[in-house]
């Protein structure tokens, strides 16, 4: 018995490493699990208090995050408001001679045959039919029907629209019509035979007819088409306003 014991204890450990490996492979996973459980049991209190703390902290952080998100949203709203107010300011500064009401475009035309806009102010804000609507760039159109909170605006590029205009340098009167074909340009007709038109000249409202106020920028002459008969000649005027992108407008109060 003693001899066996002495022999075994003097064996080189490397010789039995294979057996050890096999054993550890078998045991270690279970051992790991058990150790984990044991540790869990031992540190029981701290584990649960930690969870409680974490939960409280998490709640607090979530609350904070929510508040931050809210304030961010508020800031975004303020930013948007600020930019639109700035735009209104610029517009009102530009047209100081008129008393105006700012408005936002809330809908565009659904048909291909007309080009109308709906704005978010109506009879409650003092809007009536046939009021001139402008934007920072120039003339937009006029109101054609009004409800309590909205108004329909017929733009100058609508094919049923006619504006009496004047070339700003020579003051020659022309008639500007919207066309079905073109959303961005107007066709200027009834050009006086003696009038001299130059490409790039700007055109503004003449105030004739009483529908539109006088002196509002409409656009610039981009093309002059000469015909055999000089009375039939016409010009293409590029509207200053981009009607696809327009978002804010001003409505000019009548008689003020």
């Amino acid at each position: 018995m003693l001899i066996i014991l002495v022999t075994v204890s003097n064996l080189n450990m490397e010789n039995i490493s294979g057996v050890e490996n096999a054993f550890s492979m078998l045991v270690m996973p279970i051992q790991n699990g058990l150790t984990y459980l044991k540790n869990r049991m031992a540190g029981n209190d701290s584990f649960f208090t930690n969870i409680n703390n974490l939960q409280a902290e998490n709640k607090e952080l979530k609350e904070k995050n929510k508040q931050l998100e809210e304030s961010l949203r508020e800031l975004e709203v303020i930013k948007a408001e600020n930019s639109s107010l700035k735009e209104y300011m610029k517009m009102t500064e530009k047209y100081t001679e008129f008393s105006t009401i700012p408005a936002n475009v809330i809908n565009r035309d659904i048909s291909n045959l007309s080009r109308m806009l709906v704005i978010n102010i109506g009879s409650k804000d003092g809007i009536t039919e046939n009021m001139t609507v402008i934007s920072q760039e120039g003339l937009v159109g006029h109101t054609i029907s009004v409800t309590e909170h909205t108004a329909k605006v017929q733009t100058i590029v609508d094919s049923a629209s006619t504006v009496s205009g004047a070339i700003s340098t020579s003051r020659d009167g022309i008639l500007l019509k919207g066309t079905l074909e073109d959303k961005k340009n107007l066709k200027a007709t009834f050009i006086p035979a003696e009038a001299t038109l130059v490409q790039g000249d700007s055109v503004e409202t003449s105030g004739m007819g009483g529908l539109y106020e006088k002196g509002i920028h409409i656009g610039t002459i981009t093309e002059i088409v000469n015909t055999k008969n000089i009375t039939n000649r016409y010009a293409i005027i590029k509207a200053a306003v981009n009607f696809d992108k327009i978002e804010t407008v001003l409505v000019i109060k009548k008689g003020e």
Partner: protein
Amino acid sequence: MKKALSIILLFFLFLISYFIQSNLFSWFTIAGIKPNVFIILVLYIGLYAGRRVGSALGIVFGLLLDIFMGRQIGISGILLGTVGFAGGYLDKNFSKDSKITIILMCIATTFFYEIINYIFLVLMYKMEFEILAIAKIAIIEGLYNSMIIIIIYPFTRWVGYKIEDIFKRSNILTRYF
């Protein structure tokens, strides 16, 4: 009861179409030209629910559109009413089970709607008659509408038969046998 419910459902479809038309299709255009989903909606109502319901709902929807967005009240009402009536009439003479027939019907009604609408406008506002521009609009709009029909065909067929079952139950068998 079922009829009333389905009319409410169709009204909801109209509202959805309105939002799609005024929001999505105001920027999703082909060469700057929008489709007209109301023509498709009313044509389908005419085809599946019959010309009486088709023309009545067409007139109501058209009048609502005139009130919402139109220049004067009436034109869209009359025209959409006619489209609904035409839908019911076409159903009697052509098969709506073929995609091609529905597409052709849609192109024809779109042409009719846009051109008559334009003639009304020209006469009313003494506008210049731009024949090329209106032809271009009618053609592109007709093609755009038929593309939409191809996309929504399986859905409309399914809903359509349900509606037909409610409105024309007594007539279905005599039509097929």
